[in-house]
């Protein structure tokens, strides 16, 4: 099977030729074209964004992405908030994976202020980041299957995700917004019996993931709709700033945990998961294996995490913490790739500028617009989910 962008109809004579700008001339009066809005309320759209699609028959001729439905002005708001007051804000930037915001925000501040986080807190942060990846992959797995018509996978993985949310609840005090990693450290040691319950949950996830493999991946229909579809050309990786599984499925072993080690990752045993074919199927499979690796990493972390020790470094009084002037960029590997916070301090109690790099910005806007042309309308949702994007992190 030859690799292709989601080109549905092989017979290109049915379609108008592209002009010098690489676009087709759309003449609505010809009644051949149709414009439809995919989203912002659409179950196949990840989060609130919309695609303005120009169709010819059931093939996408052109696409313009629209964001803004979720814009909450967080970055600007934070310039008017003391640093500690940004802490409850940042988790809201990317709802499904709040912890990367907490971590990047805290570690950027710590770097500017020259603060060293206690050992126990470092381990707990590593744990929470992997737990966050795990629950996010599980949610995504249901989304990918669902967007291609398989409801059952979502029912399983959302159940599995809930198990991890239970663990989040007992460790951090919150299920979705954990508000656990604050500048200087974390807000609690492992509760009694946590390890035991976590181990049981991981075993359950392992068990179910075997069935997920059989039902979702070893599945003729799923393969038919994903193998060879929606290929990301490795040549785009660099110019488009593609990271995470989207890059790794194309054989580019980019992983911040290895390339730019942070927290306790240097003490953990793992290799970035890579694929070869760069199509929807490969990306899904890279994520599945990444998920299993995260399960393994959590087991490794649980074996090393200390039960005692300080959880927060001594910091200046948070009520008027003046972070030394300077700028920094702090990053971590979330499920979608490189997550980062660029922070500028002018030495006052308020951040001068905070810029969030969510991988969805490139993946859901520029990359999607490029890949979607010539896709069949029925594959749009599947393609979009295969890029694993979270619109809230596009609009900060």
């Amino acid at each position: 099977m030859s690799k292709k962008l989601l080109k549905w109809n092989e017979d290109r004579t049915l379609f108008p030729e592209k002009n010098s700008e690489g676009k087709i001339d759309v003449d609505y009066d010809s009644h051949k074209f149709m414009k439809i809005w995919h989203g912002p309320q659409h179950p196949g759209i990840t989060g609130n964004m919309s695609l303005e699609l120009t169709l010819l028959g059931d093939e996408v001729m052109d696409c313009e992405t629209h964001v803004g439905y979720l814009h909450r002005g967080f970055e600007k708001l934070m310039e008017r908030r003391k640093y500690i007051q940004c802490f409850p804000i940042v988790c809201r930037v990317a709802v499904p994976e709040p912890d990367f915001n907490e971590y990047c925000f805290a570690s950027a501040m710590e770097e500017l202020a020259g603060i060293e986080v206690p050992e126990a807190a470092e381990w707990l942060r590593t744990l929470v980041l992997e737990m966050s990846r795990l629950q996010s992959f599980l949610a995504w797995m249901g989304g990918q299957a669902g967007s291609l018509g398989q409801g059952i996978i979502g029912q399983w993985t959302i159940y599995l995700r809930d198990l991890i949310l239970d663990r989040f609840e007992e460790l951090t005090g919150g299920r979705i917004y954990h508000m656990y990693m604050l500048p200087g450290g974390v807000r609690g040691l492992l509760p009694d019996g946590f390890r035991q319950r976590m181990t049981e949950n991981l075993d359950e996830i392992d068990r179910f993931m075997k069935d997920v493999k059989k039902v979702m991946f070893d599945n003729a229909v799923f393969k038919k709709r994903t193998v060879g579809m929606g290929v990301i050309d490795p040549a785009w990786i660099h110019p488009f700033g593609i990271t995470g599984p989207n890059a790794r499925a194309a054989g580019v072993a980019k992983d911040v945990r290895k390339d730019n080690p942070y927290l306790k990752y240097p003490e953990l045993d793992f290799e970035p998961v890579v694929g070869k074919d760069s199509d929807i199927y490969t990306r899904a499979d890279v994520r599945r294996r990444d998920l299993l690796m995260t399960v393994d990493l959590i087991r490794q972390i649980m074996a090393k995490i200390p039960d005692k020790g300080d959880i927060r470094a001594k910091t200046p009084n948070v009520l008027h913490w003046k972070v030394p002037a300077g700028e920094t960029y702090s990053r971590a590997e979330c499920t979608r790739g490189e997550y980062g916070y660029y922070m500028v301090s002018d030495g006052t109690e308020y951040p001068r500028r905070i810029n969030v790099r969510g991988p969805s910005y490139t993946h859901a806007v520029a990359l999607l617009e490029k890949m979607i042309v010539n896709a069949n309308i029925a594959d749009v949702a599947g393609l979009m989910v295969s890029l694993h994007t979270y619109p809230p992190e596009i609009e900060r």
Partner: protein
Amino acid sequence: MAKLNDILSPFTAWKHVVREPVTIKDPLNREAADRYRGFHKNDISECIGCGTCESICQNAAIDLVPVDGVETKDGDSGLRPRVDYGRCCWCGLCVDVCTTNSLSLSNEYTWVDEDPDNFRFVPGAENKSWDSREKGYKKPGNGYELYNPKREAMEELEPEKRDQSFIEIVQGYSKEQAEQEADRCVECGICVATCPAHMGIPEYIKAIRNDDLNEGLRVLYDTNPLPEICGRICTHKCETVCSVGHHGDPLSIRWLKRYIADQNPAEEYKKILNTENLQPTGKKVAIIGSGPSGLSAAHYLALMGYQCTIYEKLPAAGGMMRFGIPEYRLPYDQLDKDINYILSLGVEIKYNVTIGKDITLEELHNQYDAVFSGTGLHMGRSTRVPGTDHPKVYQAVDLLRDIVLGKEIPLEENIVVIGGGNVAMDITRSLARLQKQKYGKVGVLATSLESEDIMPADREEVIEAREENAVIDPGWGPVEIETEGDKVKGLHVVKCLSVFDENRRFAPKFDEEQKKFFPADMVVESIGQGMDLSYLPEAFKEQLDMDQRGRILVNDDFQTSAGWLFAGGDIIQGPDVIHGIANGHKAAMGIDKYLSEK
């Protein structure tokens, strides 16, 4: 062609048909985790209404409101936090920062009500079903602090280095230490209400954090013209209510004040405080006594353009600050720094002039538009036990004054001091130093009615006195001073069981059986001071409103019933420098009001 396996494999899903469902049957009654951040709880008897929770909340979900049954008092604003669940994001930062640990979150997360206004309530004051829940989020331990509860240590002269000299003991903060200490302030301002002068404490602490010490000085002088002095010897009531002190050490407010004053050079005061060009009103005010109340009145009157003249009985200014407080607590150069600045504003002092003797009050009344009196308490009180009229029985305040005046004071090898307050400690420690200088050893013992736990002296005074080899033996009532001719033999005492009755009235009870004898060659009494109002002519006194105990009565402006005469300091309120300063400031405003209306 698809592989056969890919067609059969998805049927694996069917095996889950016979699994137990994983859904929770009754989700509404699922109990949340132990640490879950649910609705607020507040122990309102612990809460002091400091509002720190309100200031950290970025959602402005907390307002401090009055609550029935909670009174405003020192260290308690009388307000309590009200939480608005239309705004709260359950971050729990309010819990983490709560200065008293009174605030927590229960693990309750459901609350059904048809009235939206009900989702705003005062935890602890309005009963909720989750008030009794133990589980929920509390401030974590394990080194988790949002501000430092530990005080920056102050360097002090070691006992061996200080016990024979009057060198200042407390060394003062360095820039770094002061900034660290200032960082601990939560800016609640609960201290401001307790400070008699209502100093802008959080503001000047903030000036230290901002390293803007000129601004700090301006804040100090708004309410206190004697910051070098108060930065050393203030009774610092503010620190006793500091909210940070509820779970840690209170801010060392006094020493931060000293830091600001120490760092500003005297020559620049006028420029910093913008007092180079004061506009004269042409009116004149006489002030009797150069203690803190008189100096403070003079300072604020001078700022308003009044020509002030202070009449002082003694050859130097400062009152008890100079002639009572020993130099090792308050060095003279620092005292002079504050006083000289006030004099530089055009205030004049006439030394060695006693009102009532050298000049009459009547004369002052005739020559000036108004008169302020702050003559203080300078007459030592006596226990009046047999033997106190012996020439080798002295008054602490007299000895302290003579030490400052440079007079030779009587100094025996064995001395007993009667008294357990700070004045008693001052004389004990001064005598110990002089004995060490003269005899190479210390032989002074202080005894008081009050037992160790209720001794009125500051704890550190007692500790430091002992470090300097003075003996403190509290809990004894003096019975008689044994004398023999021109010699004192010692003090007979009996055990004191209690000092006050149930109504907190002074009514000491003794156990006559338990006796003790403190041998001594001289005895010093230090049980309190009385006032000398002999400068008020009898006829004038009769017209003046006074209470039964012979104290002058004043209104809120510290104005006496005579109208032109104002009074403050120890003769009115006391018992410390900062009250004198506050009285003097209010009297200055009162005098201005009186003279503007006249």
